[in-house]
């Protein structure tokens, strides 16, 4: 990640620019995460053990499983690691995920998304995730 913030161009008033709006990549990754978990077939967002550990010690919980960067044109490049539900068509679900994430990020930030790379880290039964959540909350 080159820079943690991206600038969104705003409309100019008569005297010039109204100012810049900066969106931190952490905000974008939160948007990505929230959009992803609402996709049917996606159970959780997260990387492997090492990545999650690094994310936890760096106190960037919202970055866990999501990487946001920008290309030369300033468009977002997103990488997301997900756990999917056993039984769903993974390729179709991943395609839907790419579409929804790109749409949601563009809608909320006003910046285009160049690509969304989906990494399927694991496949789980829906109740497995429920059990893990209840264990972690205890």
């Amino acid at each position, binding site marked *: 990640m080159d820079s943690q913030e991206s600038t969104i161009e705003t409309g100019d008033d008569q005297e010039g620019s109204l100012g810049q709006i900066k969106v931190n990549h952490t905000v974008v990754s939160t948007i990505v995460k929230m959009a992803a978990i609402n996709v049917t077939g996606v159970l959780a967002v997260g990387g*492997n053990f*090492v990545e999650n550990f690094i994310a936890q010690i760096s106190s960037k919980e919202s970055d866990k499983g999501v990487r946001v960067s920008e290309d030369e044109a300033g468009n977002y490049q*997103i990488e997301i690691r997900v756990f*999917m539900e*056993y039984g*769903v*068509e*993974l*390729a179709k679900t*991943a*395609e839907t995920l*790419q*579409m929804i994430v*790109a749409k949601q990020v563009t809608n909320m930030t006003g910046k285009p998304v160049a*690509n*969304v*790379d*989906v*990494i*399927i*880290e*694991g*496949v*789980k*039964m829906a109740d497995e995730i429920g059990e893990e959540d209840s264990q972690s909350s205890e």
Partner: protein
Amino acid sequence: MTELVQRASEILDQLPLYAIIGIFAVFVLILIGLGRLLKKPPSRLTAFSSEAGSVLVSKKALQELIRQVCLRDDSVEASRPTVKINGAKIYTNVDLRLASPTNLRETSERLQTRISELLQKSLNFDQIGHIEIMVTSFGKNDVDEVPIAEPASSTLQAKDISLPSEEK
């Protein structure tokens, strides 16, 4: 700082040589382990790429998928799949524990078909290599029922499946 170094060297002087070598060896092993853990590139397979981005599947996800497919079969008690990725091709080995030693060939062929269907349909993989099914044991309750006349049937290596995409 210098005091610390002095104390450390004093402690080291008091330690016998084999203890120093042991500590050094443990330290090197930890370093190697950490290096492997952090530097090892995760093995993933690209399911497809488009303008919207690419979709990759981790080896672990593939193994879990195959394991679940096998466990859905009534005759399978436990399964341990191993996936090898060579280039863009997937090679699968599955160790199975079956509930009973009946219809080994039929069971393994059925599983081969299901696994290849899964990889093709669910993930759009067309580069599917060998799918080897190895029956390693039977359920504890049925161990005594293994026919004595067929000792070799406890390990069956099913033939490779030729997929339509490979024939093209």
